């Protein structure tokens, strides 16, 4: 059955977001392999569709808090590819002038408020953002993404409890990719599913196949609508898989071959494309999106590589709201004489 017009446009929207993530990630890894970039990189390969469908259910002015493995969330949320690439390359034209880097992307224009490198620390901050929206009478929702391993740290617990007691407009999304670094889910986590923890917070929870775009979109849309209506937080456990190990260079020997193969067979990226083809959305239309994204990406890569780094005086800026002087830092400026 052919999709309705709104469905169709949503599918294409999700496809576009997914492809943008997919191509960016692919290109990053190629450049890392080729030595054109040298950064710690946490590939979202396998989690692209999850993020694309999730963010399709969210407004651009909704807040997002995510993690080091966040490029899929950031692109899906709408950060322009150029700005993100430039930040990954550390350039002055990046979202954060190169001062934050990939692990610390902030882009308030698209609602990306915090990217944290500290496991679990985003959740308490998401509460604060959501509380502020509530106090201001805005109907903004805060989406907070984190991994399965993050659910074992204290901040997760404190935040979910507070969000629930205070009925904050937050949607907590656990992207359960079954591994935390090299530790298998069950070796670090004492419950069968993360959703099992929700009852301990009086929270509505749903566990879905995050790689099923419809399931992901529906769950997100429901949770977002609930939060927007003032009915409090939800927890979504979105099951997924990461194909590229924890970080670039991790060969993933700890993943059983059969497990890997089984997930590869249902890789969401080609599957979603095929699904759209099956739904009579033509190769031509998808191809046009692909081409546009590749062009956008080429432009972004060039922009990132050719942009300058910020000047060293940036060290003195943005530490406080005033520039740092020697009287603040205790520095002793002195002349350096070269030695033969």
């Amino acid at each position, binding site marked *: 059955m052919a999709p309705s017009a709104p469905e169709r446009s949503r599918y294409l929207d999700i496809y576009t977001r997914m492809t943008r993530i997919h191509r960016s990630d692919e290109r990053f890894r190629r450049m890392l392999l080729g030595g054109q970039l040298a950064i710690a990189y946490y590939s979202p390969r396998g989690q692209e569709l999850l993020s694309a469908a999730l963010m399709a259910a969210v407004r651009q002015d909704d807040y997002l808090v995510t993690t080091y493995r966040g490029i899929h969330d950031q692109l899906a949320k709408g950060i322009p590819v150029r700005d993100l690439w430039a930040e990954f390359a550390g350039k002055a034209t990046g979202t954060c002038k190169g*001062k934050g880097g990939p692990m*610390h992307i902030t882009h308030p224009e698209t609602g990306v408020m915090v990217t*944290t490198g500290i496991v679990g*620390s985003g959740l308490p901050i998401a509460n*604060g953002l*959501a*509380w502020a929206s509530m106090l201001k009478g805005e109907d903004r929702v805060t989406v907070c993404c984190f991994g399965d391993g993050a659910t074992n740290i204290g901040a997760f617990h404190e935040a979910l*409890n507070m969000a629930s007691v205070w009925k904050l407009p937050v949607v907590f999304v656990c992207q359960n990719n079954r591994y935390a670094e090299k530790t298998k889910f069950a070796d670090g986590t004492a419950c069968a599913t993360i959703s099992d923890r929700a009852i301990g917070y009086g929270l509505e929870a749903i566990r879905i196949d995050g790689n099923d775009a419809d399931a992901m979109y529906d769950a997100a849309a429901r949770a977002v609508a609930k939060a927007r209506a003032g009915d409090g937080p939800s927890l979504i456990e979105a099951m997924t898989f990461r194909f590229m190990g924890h970080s670039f260079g991790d060969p993933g020997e700890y993943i059983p071959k059969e497990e890997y193969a089984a997930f590869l067979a249902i890789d969401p990226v080609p599957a979603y494309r095929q699904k759209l083809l099956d739904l009579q959305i033509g190769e031509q239309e998808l191809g046009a999106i692909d081409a546009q994204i590749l062009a956008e990406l080429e432009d972004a890569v060039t922009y990132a590589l050719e942009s300058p780094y910020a000047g060293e005086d940036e060290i003195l800026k943005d530490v406080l*709201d005033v520039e740092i002087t020697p*009287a603040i830092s205790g520095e002793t400026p002195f002349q350096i004489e070269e030695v033969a």
Partner: protein
Amino acid sequence: MSTGTTTEAPKMISTLQAVNQALDEAMANDERVIVFGEDVADPQGGGVFKTSKGLSTKYGDHRVRSTPIAEQAIVGAAVGAALAGMRPVAEIMLMNFITVAMDQLVNHAAKLRFMSGGQSSVPLTIRTIAGAGRGNGGQHSDMLEAWLAHVPGLKVVTASNPADAKGLLLSCIEDDNPCIFIEHIMGFQQKGVAPPPGHRVPLGKAAIAREGHDITVVSYGKAVNDVLAVAAALDPAISVEVIDLRTIAPFDEQAILESVGKTGRCLIVHEAIKAFGVGAEIAARVQEKLWGRLKAPVGRVGSKYAAVPFAPPLEKAFLYSQLEIQGAIQRLMAA
């Protein structure tokens, strides 16, 4: 109302009232100000020390909230609310409990402005109660300001009297940087002249709490009062200039250097233990920047290198004393 010539006695307030008034005025002035922490709302008594008494009744329980016992969630909520443009004032009941929330303060509150390339601003204030003297023992009495001072991006503030407490706390709340405001557990009942409405004390500026010409004693918080008592006792034999730092970090280097440049002698006094404390940084800078102009080494007085003991005589032995301050001044005068 005064009818004319007779001078009225100045109105006095306690530090407790000063803190309470500062919170009240801040909330009245700016609806972005929100106050939260464990048991801070009126149904829970307005804070264990009553610093927020009356506020939830006056401003509503949406703006003044008691929280679960969850310091990471508390500081995290402050970070998030500040990022979204609010002016959160969160209470960490005792400074030792900040040890469970250092991540939010140090990795997030302090760094988000920098890491975002200036896009984010985190105008939060954390109020926390610290200090020994009440027999609260090892886990409830620490002064940890040196840790926070070592974190670029944080301001660390404390007051030695009620008027300063009010003026500094208001300045913290109005400041665009994350500020930690430390209240001494033994200082809440201290009385002082009530400041006029609208009173502010600027951050980053020290006060000359007493003028003198023989030696400069730099201190902050409750200890300033001990230093002033010693200075008075030594007068006129030794003329002690007392600097009340008010902002511990980043501190007012110029005020210290000017004073020590004049007196030629410097002693730093604080309640925290001496080793790796705030006094070390001040001493290190003074000896460097006033090289050749000092008449004595820079001295320090702090509490003993130990956990804070419970038994009253041991707690007293742990704490720095007026006698030690006096001895240190005399030693530096004799150097």
